[in-house]
């Protein structure tokens, strides 16, 4: 090999190395900024959820404490009214019934917004309570099991996911039976909700639906979890949400 030829080879080799370094640098910086952006998005999502939950909490407490107390006072005043004739007694009784109905609705709305039971007794009890209230006027049978303990901060996110999924099922699926389990499998907490309803096309639902599925997807993303949704018209729906075990207590 001549001296010039070896110089050409060295130059080529250097060129290839430089190209390789430039490409590596390009890929590394892309990955670095991708991670930074993802972290920022997660931070924003966290702030949004925090704000949303705080606002829900405030409205729920206002509804329960202020409006609820006012309704109770109205009911008491109605009860103290003298029933001069049969017609007025009937009107007072009807009004009391209406107030009870409004108070019941208020309690439901307040519970939906911020379940106090979640703070006091934890996720398991809160979900049992939510299911019993959700299915009370319907004939839907819910089989619920929870064998995992989850910490307070993240139980609110899991509660919201379950709330959104169960609301979707009750509203749209025409299901008669729901199976809902929370278990720990292979270092993941698995939320599994399955119904025997009319089913739907998940892709079309994601494109066309309102906030329901999007909210679920956003919360799932926030928990760094994975959502597997299997459904097609006529086959019911199967929601599997795998949450990394780091979120566990």
């Amino acid at each position, binding site marked *: 090999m001549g001296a010039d030829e070896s110089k050409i080879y060295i130059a080529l080799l250097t060129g290839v190395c430089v190209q390789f370094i430039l490409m590596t640098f390009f890929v590394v910086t892309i990955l670095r*900024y991708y991670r930074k952006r993802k972290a920022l998005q997660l931070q924003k999502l966290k702030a949004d959820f925090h704000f949303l939950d705080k606002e829900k909490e405030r409205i729920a407490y206002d509804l329960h404490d202020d409006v609820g107390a006012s309704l109770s006072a109205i009911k008491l005043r109605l009860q103290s009214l003298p029933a001069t004739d049969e017609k007025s007694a009937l009107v007072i009784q009807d009004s009391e019934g209406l107030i009870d109905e409004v108070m019941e609705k208020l309690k439901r709305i307040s519970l939906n917004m911020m379940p106090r039971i979640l703070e006091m007794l934890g996720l398991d009890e809160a979900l049992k309570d939510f299911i019993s209230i959700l299915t009370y006027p319907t004939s839907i049978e819910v089989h619920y099991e929870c064998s995992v303990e989850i910490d307070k901060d993240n139980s609110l996110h899991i509660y919201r996911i379950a709330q959104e999924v169960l609301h979707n099922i009750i509203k749209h699926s025409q299901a008669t039976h729901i199976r809902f389990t929370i278990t720990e499998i292979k270092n993941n907490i698995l939320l599994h909700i399955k119904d025997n309803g009319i089913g739907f096309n998940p892709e079309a639902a994601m494109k066309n639906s309102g906030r329901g599925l999007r909210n679920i997807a956003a919360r799932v993303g926030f928990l760094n979890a994975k959502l597997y949704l299997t459904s097609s018209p006529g086959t019911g729906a199967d929601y599997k949400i795998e949450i990394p075990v780091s979120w566990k207590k």
Partner: protein
Amino acid sequence: MHPFFIHVIFNHSILIAAVIGMFRFKYIISDFYPFLIFIWLGLFNDSLSLALILTHRSNAANSNIFVFLELAVVLWMFFTWNKEKLKVYICLAIIATGVWLADNFFINSISENNSLFRVFYSFLILFISIDNLNKLLFFENGRLTRNPKFIICLTFLFYYGFNAFIESFNIFHLGLSSNVLNTLWWMLSFVNLIANLLYALAVLWVPTKVKFILRY
């Protein structure tokens, strides 16, 4: 027309960006002041080199000083865009100064056309441009094609990539024929012309200062 004058015209096409910059200087945001200085510095060096060549003197010394100042201004510009990376830019400036001193005073003489620093600074600008381009790709919300930072980084990739390639031939002393070298210099001149036109576009698209209006 004599080929030398075509080279001169291609190199002095930076005048377009420099003139637009002069008119827009008062109105644009301060983030792009270093870029305007970079352009005016380029125009000054090209004119000085032309004057020296026309008076049959070497333009090597001023070019060697120019590339050092050019890198300093580019680093300052990138620092104004990424203020959180002060330590990185200081380190890069110190290393670059070391390489420049070594190339011009210890390995070679400042009165020669030295390629070591030119290759080094070209790669340095390439790396920083890649980093900034990727940052823009991920964090910029507006249209990138009308973003002056995007155009500047892309032009740097284009120009300094080619510059590093050309200067590498000088480092390896490959013994290329004068014909090949001539073609390479023509190509560099052409790349320079394209880069200068892109710089002019970038200067045109630099955002203006936002006026503060107090409404009563």
